[in-house]
């Protein structure tokens, strides 16, 4: 459900605004909103000193973020550390110096680490080349009137070799030797030796062909590769020591300054929030006004805390509901513990508007029920329950994985219950081995009853959606509420008329149902406009769409039965059992994926489409930055 909010106004002497903001930030429950300007009341602008302070804080924060990103201090990456406490100008100045210094140092270390990594890559590249042409390169120095060129070609450029050979032949005749070797990296090493007379022409040719020669690295001193490479190989042995030294230096920096930087970041964020909050205040020459929303249950806490810390100088008053627009109020979803994991299924949607309906409790009931009816197998249910328990045990509280595990647990319970109703344990294995009998019907044979069940569920679900639309729109859009109500009545009338027509219900129901339809139709047009009949038809289509519950259920049981029949069908019993297990595994995988997708779709399209009203403002109370990620037990 959506928590009921109260809009409150705090009024006090202007010189106590900072104290009030401090108390509010510590309390962390008031979602601030700028009060409307009226008369002498105007929005409070930041003073030039405060504006300068804000700019400086942003600069320090940038240094801090860079330094922390480079250093990666101990603790989870997203950790915001503990609450920093209030900091003074002296501390901010110290942090500014520290952040700048650590950032420079961290960036220097990062650049050094990158350079070492690059050097290693370069040496390895030369090493491969050197290994390929070792014998030739070692005699390079002894070639009296020859010049050597070292070239690397990408694997995809292999055809360039024959072109190079042809071009060289036409340019300098036979005064060259071309050696090639494929390197372990996939590249092709090319060693070209030409007479010194022809060197100029060859260089021009290589430039024109855009073939880049491997340069002999200057830092290794040699004029030829054969001189440079031994030095490079020696350097390769030194690199791990230097890399370890850089790593140690980085760890030392993180150890020495990491906790201080994390604390500084939290304090700066807090101060920036305080400055932002000041701009949301209204002020006259002598007084200030702050307005915002708190959950109604927490209103007393706010009053009591303000009174305790600031006495009767600051007045907290609750505005009546007529004084504010419900669409401006922030939204807090608050559901019982059992339903809370299902909020994860609503999260991909924009928040519901304040005053509309939170679909979480309905999803918590219908989603696992639909899943269970589709999969409906005691064996699969038990495996899913075991899987859910393991994931729950391995996941962190309040994480998405924990929610997924708890949703899977609920789905497993419904799957087991439905499995008992269908008498299924790994398909027909329960019937054949354990004497399991269906308590409701056998899905392999009773296809029509299963289809009727699926469509009936659809009817109930879509009607519930329409009734929720009536409840949700009754106050804000009464016309739309009437339209939804009439649509619900017409759908019921259509169902009665159809059932009477095929003699499932007594034929006496037919005429009253048609009369209801004839009366309701113009009402629907008046309430919802000319598109209403199309909407009505689409609702009927929505109901039929629930037939997928039956289709997926039948597919699931048929695959399980086919898996069981493999045991006797493949000659060898052992091979049959193996294939049966594999097939069950595949079916279980499909049973996890497909029913989830389709149960979600039935909710998102067929159900939410009837009543869900997105566009809610997220509740973002003014508080400490480090507390943002933590749950707020007081609001639950």
């Amino acid at each position, binding site marked *: 459900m959506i928590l009921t909010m109260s809009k409150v106004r705090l009024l006090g002497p202007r010189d106590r605004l900072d104290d009030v903001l401090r108390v509010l930030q510590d309390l962390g429950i008031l979602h601030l909103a700028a009060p409307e300007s009226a008369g002498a009341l105007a929005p409070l602008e930041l003073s030039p000193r405060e504006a300068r302070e804000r700019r400086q804080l942003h600069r320090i924060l940038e240094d801090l973020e860079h330094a922390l990103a480079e250093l990666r201090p101990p603790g989870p990456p997203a950790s915001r550390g503990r609450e920093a406490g209030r900091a003074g100008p002296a501390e901010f100045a110290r942090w500014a110096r520290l952040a700048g210094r650590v950032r420079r140092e961290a960036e220097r270390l990062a650049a050094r680490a990158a350079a070492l990594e690059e050097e290693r890559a370069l040496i390895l590249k030369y090493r491969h080349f050197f290994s390929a042409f070792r014998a030739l390169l070692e005699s390079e120095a002894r070639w009296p009137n020859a010049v050597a060129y070292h070239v690397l070609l990408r694997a995809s450029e292999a055809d360039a070799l024959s072109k190079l050979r042809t071009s060289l032949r036409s340019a300098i005749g036979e005064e060259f030797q071309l050696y090639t070797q494929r390197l372990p990296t996939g590249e092709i090493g090319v060693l070209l030796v030409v007479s010194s007379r022809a060197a100029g022409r060859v260089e021009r040719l290589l430039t024109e062909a855009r073939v880049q020669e491997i340069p002999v690295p200057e830092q290794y001193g040699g004029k030829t590769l054969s001189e440079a490479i031994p030095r490079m190989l020696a350097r390769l042995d030194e690199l791990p020591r230097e890399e370890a030294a850089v790593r140690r230096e980085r760890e030392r920096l993180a150890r020495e300054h990491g906790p201080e930087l994390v604390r500084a970041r939290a304090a700066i964020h807090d101060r920036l929030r305080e400055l932002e909050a000041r701009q949301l205040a209204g002020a006259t020459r002598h007084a200030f006004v702050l307005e915002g929303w708190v959950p109604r249950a927490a209103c007393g806490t706010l009053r009591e805390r303000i009174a305790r810390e600031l006495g009767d100088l600051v007045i907290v008053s609750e505005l009546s509901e007529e004084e504010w627009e419900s669409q401006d109020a922030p939204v807090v979803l608050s559901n019982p513990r059992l339903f809370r994991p299902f909020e994860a299924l609503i999260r991909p949607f924009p928040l519901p508007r304040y005053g509309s309906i939170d679909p979480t409790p309905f999803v918590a009931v219908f989603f696992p029920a639909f899943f269970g009816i589709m999969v409906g197998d005691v064996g699969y249910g038990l495996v899913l329950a075991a899987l859910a328990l393991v994931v729950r045990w391995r996941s962190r509280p309040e994480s998405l994985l924990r929610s997924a595990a708890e949703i899977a647990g609920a789905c497993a319970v419904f799957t087991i219950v439905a499995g008992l109703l269908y008498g299924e344990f790994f398909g027909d294995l329960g019937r054949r081995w354990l004497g399991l009998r269906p308590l409701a019907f056998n899905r392999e044979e009773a296809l*029509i009853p299963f289809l009727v069940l699926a469509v009936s569920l659809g009817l109930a679900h879509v009607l519930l959606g329409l009734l929720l639309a009536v409840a949700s729109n009754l106050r804000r859009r009464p016309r739309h509420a009437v339209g939804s109500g009439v649509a619900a009545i017409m759908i019921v009338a259509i169902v009665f008329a159809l059932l009477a027509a095929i003699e499932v219900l007594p034929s006496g129901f037919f005429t009253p149902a048609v009369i209801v339809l004839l009366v309701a139709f113009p009402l629907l047009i008046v309430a919802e406009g000319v598109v209403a009949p199309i909407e009505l038809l689409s609702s009927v289509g929505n109901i039929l769409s629930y*037939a997928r519950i039956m289709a997926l259920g*039948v*597919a699931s049981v048929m695959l399980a039965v086919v898996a069981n029949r493999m045991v006797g069908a493949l000659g060898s019993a052992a091979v049959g059992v193996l294939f049966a297990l594999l097939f069950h595994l595949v079916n279980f995988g499909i049973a996890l994926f497909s029913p989830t*997708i389709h149960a*979600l779709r039935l909710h998102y399209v067929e159900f939410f489409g009837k009543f869900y009203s997105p566009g809610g403002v997220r509740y973002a109370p003014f508080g400490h930055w480090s507390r943002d990620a933590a749950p707020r037990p007081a609001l639950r």
Partner: protein
Amino acid sequence: MEVFWIVLAAALAVGVPALATAWAQSRIGPAIAASMAEKPELSTTAILMIAIPETMVILGFVVALVILLQGGAAGG
């Protein structure tokens, strides 16, 4: 001969929508994968987009079953 036509009708009822679903998903899949690469928050839309064409084959399957049951061809 009558059984042949019933079975053929059922096969067409599920086969043609299956091809249509496959074609639709072959167009939607790459598009949604590309969108999600840039905007991972589109995962909900992706689920809906992938599941929407499946309605055709699912309803085709239901119709095929009804044809088989009404025609008395189910179970051989």
